[in-house]
Structure formats: C-alpha cells, structure tokens
C-alpha cells in the first residue's frame, strides 16, 4: 500500500482537521465539505484520517462490513447469521476511506451484476460497489462540485436513507450503506447543488498558509515524507496514536454528554438570527459542539464549544444574499458577536 501522510504532521489547517476529527467522533454529524485553494492539502488530510482511525469490528465474511452488534441495519446475510446462531464471528478491520473518482460509472458506485460469474457459471450474483465498500467509513469525492448529476443523485439517496437499493439487470439487492461524505472542491469552478451542499454537516474553507514560517514548515515536512516515508511515519506515529486515543475516549464520552438548556437556546437563537433553512443546521451545530466537548474531555457543552463550531456548521446554510457581499464566515461571526456580546471571534 502507498504510504499515507500522517494526520498530525499536517501544518496548520486547524479548522479542517477539527472538522474531520468531529465527524470521526460522531459520524451522525454528516460529512465535511472542504472548500479551498489548490495545493492546500485537502486530499492529504482526508487520506491521513484513514491511517489514524481506530479499527472497527466487522462480521467475519460479510461483504458489506456489517457491525456485529447490529447497530443500525444489517445486510440480508447478516440478518440470517444473527437468526441462525447466537454468536457472530467478528474480525477487526480498518475503517474504510473510499475514493469516488469522477470518472466512475453508475454500476461501480451502486454495484451491479457480477459479469464474470454470470458469464462463466450463469449465476446471478451481485458485485458490491463503492457504496458498499464505504459502509461505516468515509466516502471521499475530490472536486465534488464537478461530479455528474446522476451520480450525485445516487449519493444523496444513499446518504438520506442509510442504505443502498439496487434494482438492475435482474439483481435486486438492498444493503446498509452509512458513510461520512467528505467532499472537496473549488467554488470558482462550479457551484455545488444546494441539496448536496445541505447534506454536508460541516463546511470548512482552507487557504494557503499566509505565514512564511508555516509554509516553510509545510514544505520541509512534505519533502521529508517524500524522501523517506517510513522514517517520517515512525516519527509521527506517537502523535497520531495520541489523536487516535483521544477519538476513542471522546466516542465513549459522547453518550453521557450533557447539553444545558441555555446552550440549546443559544444555538436556536443563532440559527434564527442567521435565517438558516430547516432544522438540519441546528442539529449539526449541537452534535458538533457535543463532539468537540467530548474531544476536549469536558462533561458539559458550553457556549465556547458552540462558538467554535458555529462557522463550520452554519456557513454553507445561509441564504445567498446578493446585496450582502460579506462572506458567509463573516456573517456567522457577525451574528455571534451580536448575540454573545463582545466576545472575541474565532480566529
């Protein structure tokens, strides 16, 4: 396998890293959209996350990577397994991070008839696609704004229902497909459809680091990695391990996390001020501040947590205002400043 750049070696880009960590802690936040300049390490960060995440238990022999605990839905086979015997054999597997290339065809995304088996044995077998492989993991689409509409529809459908339903050429299959959608793109090259944008829980802007010292560090580390990946990864494995343990701990803490009423009210007020459509914004805001509190080892969600995730949870849900030229980040920050008083804004 190709060596993956360590997550903790990424210089700066704190917002993007935080967003990825939050969805890793609580996948129900629902995906991250990364907008940004070229060459800012968007793809690197997403791939780096793969090397970081704790392994997960999967049903041994299941083609869809079902959860032995049966959390969420199971595929038909696992359903049968669960009925036939009390114990299900499970193995540890890495959390999948699946790339969806723009050139992918529909049959590879949803899965299709296994042509080889059909031709050789005449058997109607289903060959799982990318949506199956991404189950319980991450589905990464680079330049998601350029993805063809009919593929976008497939993603939206699966993301909304948590399962993939295939009805093609005589195969009829339904299997669970819950994944965290991570997209990246440059808004100057094409707008994202609002329906798709809304599916992303968090949206972050990445920029080229503007401090020279930071850029120098980026170049140095990247160069060191290119020249000797193994040594570089060994050097950073300790830091990566620390992050991994923090994620594990945070996941455990999430259940018992308390959200005081006044924080709920603040979240609602913020969404109302900004006029975000629907409840999704508010929900994401709460979930991500819970995840943040859990990550930092706190027991209670505070205004501070809310404030730090507000921009990434809401900036892509604002109605476009032709008359207001201010960027959406500024608008979120302005609203916070109005509501919270003179607290300093997020950097």
């Amino acid at each position, binding site marked *: 396998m190709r060596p993956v750049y360590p997550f903790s070696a990424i210089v700066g880009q704190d917002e993007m890293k935080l967003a990825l960590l939050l969805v890793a802690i609580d996948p129900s936040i629902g995906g991250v959209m990364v907008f940004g300049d070229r060459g800012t390490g968007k793809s690197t960060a997403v791939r780096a996350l793969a090397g970081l995440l704790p392994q997960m238990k999967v049903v041994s022999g299941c083609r869809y990577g079902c959860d032995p605990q049966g959390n969420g839905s199971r595929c038909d086979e696992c359903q049968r397994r669960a009925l036939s015997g009390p114990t299900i054999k499970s193995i540890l597997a890495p959390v999948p991070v699946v790339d969806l290339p723009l050139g992918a065809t529909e049959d590879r995304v949803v899965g299709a008839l296994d*042509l080889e088996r059909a031709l050789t044995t005449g058997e109607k077998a289903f060959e799982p696609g990318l949506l199956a492989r991404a189950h319980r993991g991450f589905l990464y689409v680079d330049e998601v704004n350029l993805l063809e509409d009919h593929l976008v529809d497939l993603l939206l459908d699966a993301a909304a229902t948590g399962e993939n339903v295939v009805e093609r050429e005589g195969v009829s299959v339904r299997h669970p497909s819950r994944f965290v959608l991570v997209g990246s793109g440059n808004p100057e090259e094409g707008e994202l459809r609002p329906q798709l944008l809304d599916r992303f829980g968090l949206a972050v802007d990445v920029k080229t680091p503007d401090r020279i010292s930071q850029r120098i560090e980026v170049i140095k580390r990247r160069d060191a990695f290119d020249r000797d990946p193994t040594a570089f990864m060994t050097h950073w494995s300790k830091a990566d391990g620390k992050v991994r343990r923090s994620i594990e701990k945070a996941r455990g803490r999430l259940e018992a996390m308390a959200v005081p009423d006044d924080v709920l009210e603040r979240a609602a007020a913020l969404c109302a001020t900004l006029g975000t459509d629907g409840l999704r914004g508010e929900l994401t805001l709460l979930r991500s501040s819970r995840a943040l509190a859990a990550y930092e080892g706190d027991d209670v969600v505070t205004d501070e947590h809310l404030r730090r995730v507000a921009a990434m949870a809401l900036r892509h849900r604002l109605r*476009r205002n032709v008359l207001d030229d201010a960027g959406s980040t500024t608008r979120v920050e302005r609203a916070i400043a109005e509501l919270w008083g003179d607290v300093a804004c997020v950097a």
Partner: protein
Amino acid sequence: MSPVLPDLPGNGALTALLLAVDPHGLGGVVLDHPHHEQARAYQQRLHAALPEGAPSRRLPAGITADRLYGGVDLATTLATGRLVAERGVLAAADGGVLVVPMAERLAVAGRTALAAALDTGSIQVAREGIAETHGARVCLLLLDESVEDELVHPALRDRVAFVIALDGRAMEELRDMDAPEVDRQWRQQVRDARRRLPTVTVDDGWVRALCETADAFGVDSVRAVLLALRCARAVAALRGRLAVSESDAERAAQLVLAPRATRLPVPPEEAVDTPPPEPPPQNEATPPEPEPPDESADPGEPKAHGGELLREAVASALPAGLLAQLLARAQAGGSAGRVGEETPNLLRGRPRGARSGLPRGGARLHLLETLRAAAPWQRVRASSPAKPLPPSRARVRVRREDFRIRRFIEKTGTTVIFVVDASGSSAIHRLGEAKGAIERLLAESYARRDRVCLVAFRGSGTEVILPPTRALARARRVLAALPGGGGTPMAHAMDAALEQALAARRGGSAPLVVFLTDGRANIARDGTPGRPRAEQDALAGAARLAQQRVASLFVDTSPRGDAMARRLAEAMHGRYVRLPDASAEALGGLVRTAMVLANGEGG
C-alpha cells in the same frame, strides 16, 4: 571528484533533462504553443534520457474514459467468457511520458484523472465491473494549443513543474544533443543524476529562501514551492553535486517560480513593524525596481542565503511580456484568462444509462450492458437452444432482446448569452445593469443548471468578458472591471453571439441570446466606420442567428426606441423589448421570462 561536466543548456532544453532526472516528482511541463516538430523534439529528448524501456504515450483528443482509465477488454472477454480488464492509457504510461495534445480542451474527467495520477502515482479504476488500482507514475507533456483566452486548467498547471515556450535556442540545443557523442554523454549524465537524486541534500536556508521568493512574487500554491525544491535537487544532481547550491536554487526558482509570478515583489520590506521611513522621492516616473540585495555577501562566500538572491534571479527570468501583463493585471484586479471551456463530460456526452432497444437510427449500442443482459441466460441458452441453430461456437449467446442502447440527456439548462453594447456614452450604465442582472440570475438559478455568459462589443470588435459559467464567485470578480466607449460594431456582435450560442448547444445546453444595445450600428464587418454598410452587415448577422434557430431577446435601450433595433430584432426572429432605463431587476425578470419561453418552444 567527478570528471568535468558539460555546461547545462538553456532553460528550454534543460527542463527536458530535469524531467528525465525526476519524471514523476516534477510532474511534467506545459509547452506553450509548440510547433509540431518542437513538441516532438522535446518529447524525444526527454524519452531518450529516461530509463531504457520507459513508455511514451500520446493521449488522443476526445479519448473515451474506458481508454483513459482502462475498462473491459471486450474482445478477450467475449472470446474467453471471462471478464478481462484492459489497462488504460494512464496505466500504460506508468514510469514514462504521457503527451497531452490540446491540453486546454481536456474535459473534467480527463483532467481529474491526470491530476490524481500526478498526486498519487496511481489510477483508481471503478468502471464497468472493474475495480482496480494501477500504478500511473507519469510525466505529463501538456501541449497548450489554446487560442485567445483559454488556458490549460489551473489544476493541472499547478501540478507540473515547468511552463515553457520553446524558442530557437532551445530547439538548437535539443538538436545538438542528438549528435551521437553528445547524446551518449547526456544520457550518461542523466542516469548518474537519477542515481544521485535520492541522496542530494538541501540546506533549510534554501527552503526558506524559496518560500520567501514565492511569497514575494505572489505564488500562493504550496505545491509550486515543493516543485521548485525538487527541481533544485534535480539541477544539483545533474551538475554532479550532492547538496543544493546557490546556483541550483536560483535556476530552480527561475524555472518553476518565475512563470507562476502574479505580482512584483514589494520593494524593500526589511521590517514591517518599524515606522515608515522618510517619504520616498515623489517624482519617480518608473515603478520601483526590485531593490538590489545588500552587497555585503562577497561572491564565493556562501553566507546566509537570503531570499533576495533568488528574488533577483526570478525577476530576471520573468518573460518579457509578463511584466507589462502583471502591471496591467494589478490595475484591473483579478486574473486574466480563463479556463478552457469544459465540455460536460468527455466520457459520453451526457450519459443516462442504457435502455433496451436496437442499435439503429443513430442509437449507439451499449456493449457492456448488452453483455450484462445476456449473461444470466447463458446456461439456459447453451443447454436448450430455442431454435435449431447451427452449433454455435460463440462463447456468449446474445439475442435480439438483449440489445441495449445508450441514452443521453438532451439538454442541461440554458446558457444565457448577454451581448452588451459597450460603445458610446451610455456604455457604463448598460454594462452596470447587465452585470446586476447576471448576478441576480446566477444567485437565483444556480439550482438549475443554467449558465451565463457576457460578451461586450465596442470599437472594432467583441470581447468575451465572462465565459459561460454558473459560478457566482467567478462572475463577480470578472465583472468588477468592464471597459467602455468607442464605436458600435454590431455585425461582430452578431457573429460573437452566434459563436457562443453554437458552442453552448454543442455542450448540450440551450442558448438564449440577450442583446442590450441602442441598435445604432456604425462599424461594418470589415472594421470600417460608416452607417449603411454597418447596418447591412448587422442584419445579415442577425439573419444567421435566425437561421440557426437561436432564441433571442433584443433589449433596446435607446431613449425613444430605434427603428434599426426593431429591424434587427425581426431579422433574428427575436423578441423586441424597449427598456430605455434598463434596471437590473427589470432585465432579470425579462430574461427569466424569455428563458421559459425559449425552453417551451423547444429547439
């Protein structure tokens, strides 16, 4: 030490050698409008210097996705009855050179595949029953053959180290290297350099200097600096050194950073936080030159390598026209040029899967889907032939009912082409309103797949101010500065409108042309002033629009309405609207209505 090495050639020929030293690391080169022989000479030199047996492939224009990514090898699959995959061009070029002609026309899927190959050194195939990953450590030779304002897509330009125009000197040097003796020598030297490359070290000071230089010239991409660093290593290796020296870093900065410059360095910036020094002399006519570096460092004494040295090197290597261009751009704001028009998809136009049907009357057979349809029945058909056919030797039995044909989407939204009269005194107002209307349209209709394009005409020609786009951010930036004034070349405007309309149609979008003018043509097609000829030419142009059945809307902005404007609208079979005081809001409403009507008519 090593024997005496020949001097390095000039930049053009040098890049070919450097790419051979680190083909995938440097990513490749954009050749700026090469002649056929130039491109070939460059490619041959690069290929000759690569390790023995390295592939060299050419990407045919209009390549299909299955050939780029790889797909099903139909012949073998049918013959053996087993799914056999075939490597695509990208995988076949692994470890070698991939020539991309007309790189500016590369469509989305093509360029993302190339970009992914450069990033990861591999290509992931997820097509038609195949899921594989192949090595694709390619070195791209992007031939930029654009006209006017198209550009090789920034996503690709950013990923390759060099952008060069081959000049006479470069060609001469490339030719000289073909002499057998010289050829052998260079091959040897490149081979040695390749071996040496992994051990070449770079002092941190040079990393800092490259970063600072990039910053001074407004090169924002971190990738550019990384490429410059790799380039410096390759230069050092080629010169037989084990550590990057000042001249290596200089050369790398010239080659990689200079073509990417977007601004001139702010003269001296020794300390930002000190109070401003005494005011500079007021009457300096020329813009200040980049300050020469402090002459404290003696030549031959390598001291703290300041960014100034590199900065000077880069400044000296800026292409001649670039300086003027940079200055102009600084005034206009925003970057010039545009990304090459992207056809929606190089793969299959606008695919919408397959349906059963016979491949005739222009319908194209979808082979794979046909096979899929036939596959489940093979057993049955083999054992019980429905009709007494001659014993078939075919491995796959395909019947009429298995046939599947490709489906395409007919139209994808509308492209509204604003053709705005930027001549005369009211130009500013008209352009301003058009701009407002465009922003409104984009803001409201981005959910639908509509695009907007703006052509301005004045003086002796037309200018595409905003190529078809649906990106509001981009439109805003481009529309910020619009020119105005001059004569009214109506005939040219008609031609430009037709050209854009047909291009939109080719891209699968329905065009709607919106003219915004007072109709007083006074420049003829051949550019000469004079009203009668100009009007005649304009009417002829309008008739051509009608002939192509392009939907149009003619907004007359003259105070009392203009007879000529009305005649033009009639000639193009367009709707005529008099709107002396066209406000952005009114215009937006009009255009929306026209869009609905145009779609209703069906073209």
